[in-house]
């Protein structure tokens, strides 16, 4: 393992995270808040430490897939540890474990909170919470790739380990250029959403925070009741953008290079939209008598479905009070997740589609044992290795889920709370049901459970394997 280059990249990451803290600092200046000092101190320290560390050049440029995995895992742990310091330093979240939970929940775009009351937080803390979503959505290392001088061959391993989906490909030959295009699309869409929300009459500060949260499919609100007290129009805009940010960014790139036909052919997007449409329909019918008009029930169904499938986690109503059928649909959507190559979490629609196709092939095989099968996806046959990778991912996912579930049951909560707490964190959604429902929080859990859930959040964001690699003894052997 080439530790020196990992250290070098982490120093870059430290500087990036320091630079990003400029936003809460500026906010603190505008609102004249004392908590801003906490951010300023951490920011200066990050820049200094990162700057010094960067001066020592790595001894060797050797960089393989395992370095990619370990760097990505370390990077996310590092930004969480650093990003949590200002919360505790300013005294707004006194317990560091809680602050860490909140920050990991932010960067992994989960949106699960330990705070029962969000509103007392200062503006700079609120915007940092939401901004972590935005940064974590597209990925810190992908951002780093846009500025890092293109030297070694390490970039592809980094991008592959951080970006969601089973076949991460570049848009254009140069990785720097690819990363810039991705961030360009990301920034443009965020800005469009901000403009629309402002036009719909939302205050500037709320617009910024909620747009960051939507773009990263995060889910931290700035009011205690999440999104419930905003107007129907504003909620509608957020619904649409949540769903848009859950689509594979390759689709937008294809639109950008004027190949809309190819963009619309995207199989994953079609399934994604199909799932959303049918889920909305079923929930709207199921919750019809809870609301006065069809319009309202469809509106709330659409918002909740969009929020859960893209793993955002905003809510306009307490869906914990919905009938069981609707709740079950939402829990299933949690596992499904958004498209690969989007900012959303979960298992990803593409994986689910491929898994269903392999099941179909297996059934056919039992009817016609000699029949030859291929799994086709996006119009191309998938290689066996890719299909196997998806199956193993699924297995690892289930096992990790089971292990976390077991530990969490020590809390002695009811089944639904335990189950959805793990599901909501492993899939980066945020709210679960019952004790961790949309109007409740994770603050009452024990430290052990919080650490397990933190691990789950990171594992969910980085698609399980990078975090599991850290647990392997051979990773640590010299």
């Amino acid at each position: 393992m080439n530790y020196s280059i990992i250290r070098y990249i982490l120093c870059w990451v430290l500087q990036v995270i320091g630079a990003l803290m400029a936003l809460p600092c500026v906010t603190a200046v505008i609102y004249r808040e004392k908590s801003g000092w906490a951010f300023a101190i951490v920011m200066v320290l990050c820049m200094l430490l990162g700057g010094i560390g960067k001066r020592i050049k790595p001894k060797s440029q050797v960089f393989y897939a395992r370095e990619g995995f370990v760097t990505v895992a370390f990077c996310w742990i590092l930004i969480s540890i650093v990003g949590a310091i200002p919360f505790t330093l300013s005294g707004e979240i006194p317990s560091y474990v809680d602050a860490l939970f909140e920050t990991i929940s932010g960067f992994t775009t989960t949106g699960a909170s330990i705070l029962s009351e969000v509103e007392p937080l200062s503006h700079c803390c609120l915007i940092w919470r939401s901004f972590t979503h935005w940064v974590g959505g597209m990925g810190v290392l992908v951002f780093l790739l846009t500025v890092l001088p293109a030297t070694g061959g390490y970039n592809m391993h980094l991008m592959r380990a951080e970006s969601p989906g089973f076949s991460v490909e570049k848009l254009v030959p140069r990785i720097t250029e690819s990363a810039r295009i991705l961030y360009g699309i990301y920034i443009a869409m965020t800005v469009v959403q901000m403009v629309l929300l402002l036009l719909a009459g939302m205050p500037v500060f709320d617009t910024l925070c909620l747009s960051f949260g939507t773009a990263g499919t995060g889910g931290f609100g700035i009011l205690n009741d999440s999104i419930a007290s905003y107007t129907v129009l504003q909620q509608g805009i957020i619904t649409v953008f949540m769903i848009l940010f859950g689509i594979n960014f390759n689709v937008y790139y294809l639109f950008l290079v004027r190949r809309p036909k190819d963009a619309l052919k995207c199989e994953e997007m079609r399934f994604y939209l199909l799932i959303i449409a049918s889920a909305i329909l079923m929930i709207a019918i199921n919750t019809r008598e809870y609301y006065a008009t069809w319009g309202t029930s469809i509106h709330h169904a659409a918002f909740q479905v969009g929020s859960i499938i893209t793993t955002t986690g905003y809510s306009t109503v307490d869906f914990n009070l919905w009938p069981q059928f609707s709740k079950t649909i939402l829990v299933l959507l949690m596992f499904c997740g958004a498209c690969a190559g989007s900012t959303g979490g979960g298992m990803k629609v593409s994986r689910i589609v491929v898994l269903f196709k392999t099941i179909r092939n297996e059934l056919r095989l039992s009817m016609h044992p000699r029949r030859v099968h291929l799994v086709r996806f996006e119009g191309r046959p998938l290689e066996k290795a890719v299909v196997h990778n998806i199956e193993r991912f699924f297995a690892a996912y289930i096992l990790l889920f089971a292990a976390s579930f077991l530990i969490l049951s020590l809390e002695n909560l009811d089944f639904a709370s335990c189950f959805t707490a793990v599901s909501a964190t492993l899939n980066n959604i945020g709210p679960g049901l019952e004790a961790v429902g949309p109007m409740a929080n994770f603050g009452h859990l024990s430290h052990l459970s919080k650490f397990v859930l933190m691990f789950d959040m990171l594992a969910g964001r980085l698609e399980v394997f990078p975090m599991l690699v850290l647990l392997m003894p051979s990773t640590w052997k010299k």
Partner: protein
Amino acid sequence: MPKTVAENDRFGGVEDNMQIIVVGCGTVGATLTEYLSKEGHNVTVIDSKASRLTHVTNSYDVMGVVGNGASYGVQMEAGIEDADLLIAVTSSDEVNLLCCLFAKKAGNCHTIARVRDPIYSHEVNYIKDELGMALVINPEYAAATAIARLLKFPSAIEVDTFAKGRVELSKFRLESDNVLVGSMLKDIQSILKCDVLICTVERGDEVIIPDGNFQLREKDEISVVASAKNIVKFFKKMGMATQRVKDTLIVGGGSTTYYLAKQLLAMGIDVKIIERDRARCDELCELLPEASIVHGDGTERDVLMEEGIERAQSFVSMTNLDEENVMLSLFAKSVSKAKLVTRVHRMAYDELLDTLDIGSIVYPRLTIAEDIVRYVRAMSNSLGSNVETLHKLNDGRVEALEFWIQEDSPVVGVPLMQLNLKHNLLVACINRQGKIITPRGHDMIQVGDTVIVITTNTGLHDIKDILR
């Protein structure tokens, strides 16, 4: 906005990067991809095998497209419309030509094809002109030419030519009995009284561009630049052989052997080829009436001894297996004093081979990559002072470039000692209308000259880039 040299250096000349598509990801394709990507170009690789592409996309910053490169759809997917250059290096000549034809129509880009069948090789110019191709490359032919050059000049391990053959760069190893061992570079002029320039010294793993106070040691591999005439004089003064070899023994009768034999026979060198396949022997016999063809296994000791390896003046190992070639050369070294040339395809272990005393090693891939990289650099710099020739020396760590000065630039008309040159860069030779000048501090570069520059800063595009 004019970019500073430093920026340029760091990104390898991003300002004029091109969209290049490489079809075929075999050995040559992968080497090319590596070089072109490191030059800062946007490279997309097409191959029908996904596994080969994964390897390349993991190692270099390039994009891979799976499919048949001769298909219009696949070319479109690889972005042929915006491409500047397509290089077809699949294993099939016909596919390569077809790729170029389609690319020409679909993208109106420059095209380079590898065509290696000897049948086509006579028609290279016709193919090039009629199909509008920029370059037709033949790795076997290029390798054969490189080997022939070595046999013409057996004392050198490596010979590269510039200025249409008027200037030569030869690399040789300093044995313990050489008069130069222990002397300073600035004294060489007075010891040997001949006008040569020592431009690189390879000592162990290090490659040095030395200055006057550099002291030579035993086992250094030094490269000298001079006019062809002076080089001969230089070697004579050192007491090294300057005569071309009189005969050669070649093991393996592939197409490179055919091209090589043809060139050697034309120079009046006797050629003996040992080939293990009977049918190929007959074929060679028909193609090369003047050469003696021996049917036998060239890796067998008895066969080699019987064919007189001990007396041979030169020995070229050209079987299809690198390991066999290296072994044969080691054996030849032990039984004879022949000039040895070893062909090696795999470049990954080059530093290991350098430690073995097996004479000159020819990497066909490298030869081809040099040609294409030179073409690409000239293409991305169609206005300024073009790269006329490019040779990669010392395993690609050093480049020797020949620039043709076509227009006024900051380097023209200023004495060299007043130019703020980059570190590890040497203006080795100026060719002024056929007159070869070994430049000293007060010499100036003029419009119309061709200038040879030796440097470890790889990636120079224009003569301006020699400035800091």
